[in-house]
């Protein structure tokens, strides 16, 4: 994120920086990079907020956090109250404060951003949530009396956790069914510890449990039980928030050689299974010396920075467009650059080469140039003829996207999906082609952001409440 101070108007208080671990030190550990605001810094930053009468920031937040109100609390030193204010609309503030692309959401609409730098809303959200958690005094609202209606939620990722929090507050009996052994979805298996410490996710999941949300792990909907079996057991409505967790491979020769990972596998081993702590933890991971990560999104940045921390001497991003088109957050690209990641732009692998043992040793790449803009306005990469060259690698992480996992659609008759396997919803409510079944997050939109998935959970909660109130 931008750390440049406002030079033209020195009399104004600049956006406060967050101290962080030195690059040289942090590439040898998995600890969080930014340290967060101190109380003093948080107050200084909070006082920059001018408390607009018609705040644009709230409109930029998919879960409508009461931004000026919580910031006012911080400015006046009421840190706990700030955390409670956040939790009125956001069950995962410590997560959102860290991983939301605020530059495209709340902070994009901050009036201060027009002439200078916006209020650091994300950093303040993080500060308040951390303050409450670190104080060990998490306020649990009194339990809501059950309305006798049961909701089943498939998937304990950001959309499922959000809708669960919303519905349990309205008196529903909510059970989340999660396939993995830990709740959190991408927050636990995908986003690395150095960006989002898992203890924080656990604390926020624990908060939902204390609100009364039941979480059944190791439960694969479609396999352990189908959606129709759950309805038969007495659930009144269902929300599918299973994400887009299936990896996409490029289908080029040699892609199944040993040493080639999907980003999902690489990150799941490292984050969920804590393979970076092997052999203290039992799951192994390949600690490559020359690691190429294919792709330019946040998942690619997370993978390449993980590779560095696992001891890579060369950690490379291979991207077929230029840095301008990279979908990753600028802050993450900046962090990766500081840490010594090499960026090989306008480059695309066409084949992997292996040794006799079937291990990857090289990657044949083509140089690209940017051609005409396509329908979406992005300039498409065009290969330059005869530009093949080989990059020596011993580990490759393919981070070119994910797609829908077919288990639920295949085992749920009448559930309409589109050509790509994503669940079709009628409107913003998330209602699917089946009565009483709602869906939201990446399983509907394809890979997007944590906060958009949370927004979808929020809308489906409202819709399910309306649907069951009429019944």
């Amino acid at each position, binding site marked *: 994120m931008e750390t440049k101070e406002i030079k033209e108007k020195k009399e104004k208080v600049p956006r406060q920086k967050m101290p962080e671990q030195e690059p040289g030190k942090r590439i040898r550990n998995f600890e969080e990079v930014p340290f967060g605001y101190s109380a003093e810094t948080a107050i200084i930053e909070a006082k920059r907020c001018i408390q607009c009468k018609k705040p644009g920031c709230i409109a930029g937040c998919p879960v409508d956090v009461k931004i000026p109100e919580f910031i006012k609390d911080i400015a006046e030193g009421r840190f706990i109250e700030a955390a409670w204010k956040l939790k009125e609309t956001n069950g995962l503030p410590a997560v959102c404060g860290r991983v939301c692309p605020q530059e495209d959401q709340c902070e994009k609409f901050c009036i201060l951003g027009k002439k200078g730098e916006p209020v650091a809303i994300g950093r303040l959200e993080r500060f308040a949530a951390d303050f409450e958690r670190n104080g060990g005094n998490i306020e649990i609202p009194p339990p809501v009396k059950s309305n006798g209606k049961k909701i089943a939620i498939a998937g304990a990722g950001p959309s499922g956790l959000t809708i669960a929090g919303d519905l349990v507050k309205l008196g529903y009996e909510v059970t989340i069914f999660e396939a993995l052994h830990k709740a959190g979805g991408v927050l636990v298996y995908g986003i690395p510890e150095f960006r989002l410490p898992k203890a924080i996710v656990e604390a926020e999941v624990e908060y939902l449990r204390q609100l009364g949300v039941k979480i059944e792990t190791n439960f694969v909907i479609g396999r352990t039980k189908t959606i129709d079996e759950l309805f038969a057991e007495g659930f009144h409505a269902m929300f599918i928030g299973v994400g887009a967790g299936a990896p996409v491979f490029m289908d080029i020769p040699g892609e199944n050689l040993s040493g080639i990972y999907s980003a*999902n596998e690489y990150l799941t081993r490292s984050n969920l299974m804590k393979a970076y702590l092997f052999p203290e933890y039992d799951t192994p991971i390949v600690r490559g010396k020359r690691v190429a990560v294919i792709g330019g999104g946040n998942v690619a940045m997370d993978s390449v920075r993980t590779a560095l921390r696992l001891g890579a001497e060369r950690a490379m991003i291979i991207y077929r467009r230029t840095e301008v088109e990279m979908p990753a957050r600028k802050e993450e690209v900046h962090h990766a650059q500081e840490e010594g990641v090499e960026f090989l732009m306008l480059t695309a692998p066409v084949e992997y080469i292996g040794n006799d043992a079937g291990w990857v040793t090289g990657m044949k790449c083509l140089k690209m140039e940017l051609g005409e803009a396509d329908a979406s306005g992005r300039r498409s990469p065009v290969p330059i003829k005869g530009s093949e060259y080989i990059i020596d690698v011993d580990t490759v992480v393919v981070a070119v996207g994910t797609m829908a996992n077919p288990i639920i659609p295949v085992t749920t008759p009448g559930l309409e999906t589109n050509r790509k396997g994503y669940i079709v919803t009628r409107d913003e409510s998330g209602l699917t082609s089946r009565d009483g079944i709602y869906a939201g997050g990446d399983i509907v939109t394809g890979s997007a952001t944590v906060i958009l998935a949370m927004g979808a959970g929020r809308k489906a909660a409202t819709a399910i409440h309306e649907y069951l109130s009429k019944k």
Partner: protein
Amino acid sequence: MNKIIENTKLSESVVKMVLEAPVIAQKRKAGQFIILKIDEKGERIPLTIVDSDSQAGTITIIYQVVGKTTSLLARMKAGDALQDLQGPLGNPTEIENYGKVVCIGGGVGVGVVYPLAVALKKAGNEVISIIGARTKDLIILEKEMEKVSDKLIVATDDGSYGFHGFVSVVLQQLIEKGEKIDRVFAIGPVPMMKVLCDVTRAPGIKTIVSLNSIMVDATGMCGACRVSVAGKTKFTCVDGPEFDGHDVDFKLLANRLKMYCDPEREAYENHKCGCDGN
């Protein structure tokens, strides 16, 4: 939950475990597997469901002690519990009345082929079973296999019991004798499955194998278990674990199974690395 009811040795290195798992017991079908994780620091490993009792709410798994996790598992006692147990996973075996089927199991693979033999017999097939191991003491489930088979042939590599030689030779001889076989189910170490597929390729006998790739989540989200079948990449956990053996790239599978030999050895120094397909 996930309480261990029984954990008994079947041979020197093969152990049978009965687990409390009522939901899985009710749902599972032949050919499916579970993922288990012993404790917080444990890894996730896949194991085939060998048997289940929906009344008692239990499932049975059989594992060979080949590394750290299986060794820890072998040391657990009735009354202990596993932290995580997920399933049933994978596609069930396609069970039909094919006519005459041959069920072949090698080593701990007998545990995997046993539920298939049970289901195939129940579906009206004539079941010939061939089970094999390196030596007599490593033969498991002989009585159980005998009960569900019309004919059972036991083979040992060293000739210490039954036929002296590989299960593939037994199958070859059956074919040469003119036995009309409609389908073969072959489960065991990768080299064994490869040779069996070579034997059935020429006479054109459809041969189903159950692949034992490395898995992490086993729900289709990572591709650790990817294999090449008829030139296409498939995920063993969601597209399999059973495939037409004549289409499987066994060399690729064998290579990928060796990916973590070094760290596995590190984790379990005193034992032979078990990731060479055994």
